């Protein structure tokens, strides 16, 4: 019995470790699959529920994006840019108007 509890506990611990690795994998997946077509500002400026991020990934996959680690990418986007996160501070470009 004790052995079983220990086994379950170690599975939970392993899952927790995996969860940490999951977000790192997700960030790597983002760098691999998204930036070929656009910079990441358009992603990071949004605040969406997991279901909405999932639909965005489906849309991009439908357009030919090869997302190798979808689970990790979805977890990363939801953890960092979920709709529970505050809106990002505005960013401005440098003045480059002709004088």
């Amino acid at each position, binding site marked *: 019995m004790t052995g079983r509890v220990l086994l379950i506990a170690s599975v939970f611990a392993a899952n927790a470790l995996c969860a940490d690795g999951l977000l790192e994998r997700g960030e790597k997946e983002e760098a691999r699959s998204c930036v070929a077509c*656009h910079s990441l*500002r358009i992603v990071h*400026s949004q605040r969406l529920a997991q279901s909405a991020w999932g639909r965005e990934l489906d849309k991009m996959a439908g357009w030919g*994006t090869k997302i190798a680690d979808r689970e990790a990418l979805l977890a990363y986007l939801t953890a960092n840019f979920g709709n529970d996160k505050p809106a990002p501070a505005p*960013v401005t470009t*440098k*003045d480059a*108007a002709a004088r």
Partner: protein
Amino acid sequence: MTPSRRDVFAALLAVAAAKRAGAADDAIAIPGKRSMLLHNDRPEDLETPVSYYDSWLTPTSSFYVRQHIPRPAPIDPAAYRLTVNGLVSKPLELTLADLQRLPQQTVPATLECAGNGRGFYRPQVPGIQWGRGAIGNAEWSGPRVSDVLALAGVAPTAKFLEADGADSPAGGAPDFVRSMPLQKALDPATLLALRMNGQPIPDIHGFPARLIASGWVGASFVKWVTRLSPAAARHNGFFMNPAYRYPKYGVPPGGAANPADLEPIEGMPVKSTITAPEDQSKMTLGSAATVRGFAWAGEEAIERVDVSTDGGSTWRAAKLSEPKLRFAWRLWQLDWKPAEPGYYSILSRATDSAGRVQPVVAQWNPSGYLWNAIDRIGVSVEKQS
């Protein structure tokens, strides 16, 4: 507690990362543009800060930019060709000189992204989180699309006009192709503009030729136009369906629209924006302010703008700029001298020549299009200390 070496190392890394991020922001400069709100740099999605709107014509240096896919390599005007094909009696290839030889018309028209104000919707929806500045007003000049099409002869079976630009997407992403009913294409205010505010259209805005569908959604203003094709049916690519469609019937916030009830966005709704005072700014009791802004109404003209400085309890008519035109915005202003200190909610509400009035609540929709609720800012009036 003494930080471990590992903590110090992590902190150093964080500082270095923040510096890199700061440097990247500083480094982004879009040639020809003032400092703009940056939504994306590749491709460019730039919003005009409301404080820049102080003239009837928006200078190109502060005009907003929405690119769906990366813009094409700069087009050599001598090598440029416009293909007119599809349901025509004589397919053509026209040069820029051919277009310049046709009678040139000028139409002042407001150009607004369908998603202007998307960032105000709750719950949030995917897409660029535009505030108030995905809009501008310019004078567009060039031949009428009807004159261009007349050279090729439109077949009587044509019901739509399809337009494609020189931009092409990466990978399997959809091309930006749009179509409009032929009736709109043949309207005298629909142009193939070669100039914007009197100058050749800048590359970032569609050099050398941009479709101007006066009063219609910004997505109809196709840039870098290289092909016009009369067709029997509406193009059914992504940027016509499901993109740029709006539910015919109201959807509960956060709900889904029935795809069969989604209709292409065409003419734009009535709307006003407050550009001054600045939202959440302060002023001193005893001083006066001018509440200012602009108002527009798609294919209609602006009839009146009412302003409230008490959260909507009472309204006063703002003074409107002339001329009163279809397609182009009107500037408005109202002098205001608050009698008491405190926090004031200032609202603006436009009415157009068709009797449309801005709603109190913008209809939530899954793509966050057509935000046009009564605009609202807050100002604190403080006693001089």
